[in-house]
């Protein structure tokens, strides 16, 4: 969780030079950013207007979908999509803004799910305390991953995180006293939210949708905050960031803690959806599917991970290929995305639509930097 120290000044929508604190260092970073990406808002930040529009659109579509009378199993898949989207969006922040590809967040997801299973079956906790506990547990485990990210980078980091996910899995399957080992834990009771029982899939649909909206909003806030700036600075040049006094350890710990907590919350809903947690659900394979979801959709975009989740989860139900061929096909599409459309499906569509609107002159044009832009810092005028 971010401490007060990391958020100097306010994080209002249009930070002025004043609110970001005096001192040349932040401005220096800003100018460097400008040099690298002339003419555009750095770091792919959306404007608040676009973000709100995107979230509203998501809400509308989701509500229409639920109310349109689709068969019940599609609501179940919808809940799964939201759960995956929460987790994938968190991973996307780490990857896109932090340059850290985490293959251990599937394990953090499992930590949240197991925390839920144990607290509900042994102590009958209601929903909100369970969510908090799962977020804290997964956040703490996540935070410890920062000790790895501060010491190794790039490929080493990825391999070590694979090892971490194996360790988490190993603890789940061996710690029989708590996790019941390979037999898993069954959740029989419905969740209770301030005395109200949540048991139907449709109710979970709305609970997870609301959580997803909050998470997406929170991620956008983080992107624009000091934490986000520092994270990107570290991503771009660790030595330079260190030289201006950014603490890599603190920033990474906060980022892992927050994204870990989000993974844990996704785990809570997963436990309630499946009503059964077992180690095999949280292996390194699960982590890899989340990476695929993030990259397929596009890690730079607000709704990219969500779209990736929609594709990965709904496609098997709609395709009529042999399932093995369908999986192989997803592998082919994934490679194509990585090599040809690295910004994901959303990026691809956005670019092609942008091409259209550019021709017709509709839509926003990037503005060259001017004095006003420099004063306003990272935000486009």
């Amino acid at each position, binding site marked *: 969780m971010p401490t007060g120290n990391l958020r100097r000044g306010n994080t209002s929508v249009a930070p002025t030079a004043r609110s970001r604190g005096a001192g040349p260092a932040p401005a220096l970073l800003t100018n460097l950013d400008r040099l690298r990406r002339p003419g555009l808002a750095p770091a792919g930040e959306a404007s608040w207007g676009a973000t709100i529009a995107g979230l509203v659109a998501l809400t509308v579509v989701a509500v229409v979908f639920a109310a349109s009378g689709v068969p019940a199993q599609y609501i179940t898949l919808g809940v799964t999509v939201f759960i995956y989207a929460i987790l994938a969006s968190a991973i996307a922040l780490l990857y896109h803004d932090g340059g850290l590809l985490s293959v251990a967040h599937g394990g953090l997801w499992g930590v949240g799910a197991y925390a839920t299973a144990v607290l509900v079956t042994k102590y009958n906790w209601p929903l909100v305390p369970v969510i908090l506990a799962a977020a804290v547990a997964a956040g703490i485990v996540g935070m410890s991953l920062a000790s790895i990210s501060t010491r190794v980078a790039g490929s080493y980091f990825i391999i070590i995180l694979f090892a971490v996910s194996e360790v988490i899995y190993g603890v789940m399957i061996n710690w029989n006293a708590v996790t019941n080992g390979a037999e898993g834990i*069954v959740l029989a009771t419905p969740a209770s939210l301030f005395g109200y029982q949540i048991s139907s899939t449709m109710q979970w649909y709305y609970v997870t949708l609301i959580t997803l909206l909050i998470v997406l909003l929170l991620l956008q806030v983080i992107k624009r905050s000091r934490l986000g700036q520092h994270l990107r600075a570290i991503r771009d040049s660790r030595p330079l960031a260190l030289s201006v006094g950014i603490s890599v350890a603190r920033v990474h710990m906060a980022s892992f803690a927050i994204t870990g907590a989000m993974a844990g919350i996704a785990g809570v809903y997963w436990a309630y959806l499946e009503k059964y947690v077992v180690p095999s659900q949280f292996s390194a394979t699960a982590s890899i599917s989340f990476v695929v979801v993030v990259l397929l959709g596009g890690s730079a975009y607000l709704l990219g991970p969500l779209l990736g989740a929609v594709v990965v989860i709904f496609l098997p139900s709609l395709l009529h290929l042999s399932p093995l061929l369908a999986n192989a096909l997803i592998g082919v599409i994934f490679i194509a995305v990585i090599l040809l459309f690295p910004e994901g499906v959303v990026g691809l569509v956005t670019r092609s639509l942008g091409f259209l609107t550019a021709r017709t002159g509709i839509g926003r044009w990037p503005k060259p930097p001017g004095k006003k832009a420099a004063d306003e810092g990272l935000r486009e005028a």
Partner: protein
Amino acid sequence: MKAASVRRTLTRRPVALFAVLATLALAACSSSGGSSSGASSGGASGGSSAGAASGKTIEIGMDAEQGGALASFGLSFLQAAKAGVAYVNKTGGVTINGTKYNLALDICNDNSDQTQVAACATKLVVTNQDKFIFGGLADFGPILRGITEPNHAIYFSTGSAVAALMSSSHYVVNTVPSLAARSLMSVRGFKKAFPNAKTVALLGEQDATDQAAFAALQTAFKQEGLTVVGTQIAPLDATDYSSFLTALKAKHPDVIWNELAAAVNSEPAMLGQNGSLHAATVVFNNSGSCQASYPHTPGITYMAETNAGAITAGPNETAQTKDYEATYYGLGGIKNPDPNISAGLYIYDFFPILAQAMEKAGTATDATKVLAAINSLSYKGVDGTITIQNNQSTYGQVLCTMTDGNTGNSQFEVFPDGTTTSIGTSS
């Protein structure tokens, strides 16, 4: 380090994009309605989806692993279910209140994918209103149960993960004898075949079946006077069992009791490695079968609990079993011979059992009445005489031995009451 790349701002365009995609998704959903079940192999598959007992068919839900990691067992299971349905329809169907119904299988493919299992269960139970559910291997059973229980659908389960939940379930029928009963029968049969064996070493995997089985087996061994001298539990990704076998060999067991067969690929590996190490010259497998296709070694006697209670080889093979095999392969869509054909024996008999129960209860929709009827029946099927009490089924167990790769040497049937019958030998 990330190369600097030009990034676009997110504008209102993705809003339009999302709307387009959502519309497409909705269109696809509504057009495929309730029958999108992926690739299903031929034979009797889901007919009308309009509820349990409409027209002249009664829909039986089947959550099948037609793809993914569990497909090899899943497809065999599905084939056995199809054979069970075909058998019931062939022998007169189900007559309730004077109306004759046929059974039909309502298949949903979960692709061995955890995200699809809950969706399949929801589709079968909630959308299609199926009152009777089969399928859901391994870790998927409890997920199915989580949806069948609150919706009062009867789940015919074969897995040990659900078996462990019997006491808290009202609508689950365990089609496999209880773990305690099976362990006792296996140990007794084993003693009959090898009266001189005194010590046993256990080798298993880190999965739910073995975790539960080890406890039950230790109790059974103790009860029958055998000593367990060592246990080893291999991680699921183990491929080389020689270190496990060597460690067990040091304890000098007469027999290695192998629980590994959960993964088809690990059992032959273990057998081959034991062949060279001779950790014990007798290997008893609690969930495999005597198959000529397995690699075997001279000097190793291999014995297995096999085929549930069914005699599927030799001169004592019953007409019913022959009929099962004929129907199984006759439906097509599965390779012949199928090494996993015996997996389906745990559910095949339960289709006629369900049919008889529905007739006796006079209803195909009242789960409580049907359950009561199931618990009152005694059925003589491929698995021998089956009785069900407290939703837990009981029947005998057939064991086979194999020496030097020679199957059909001697078969026993062990009955729940402790008696055994030698089924006889065949060359």
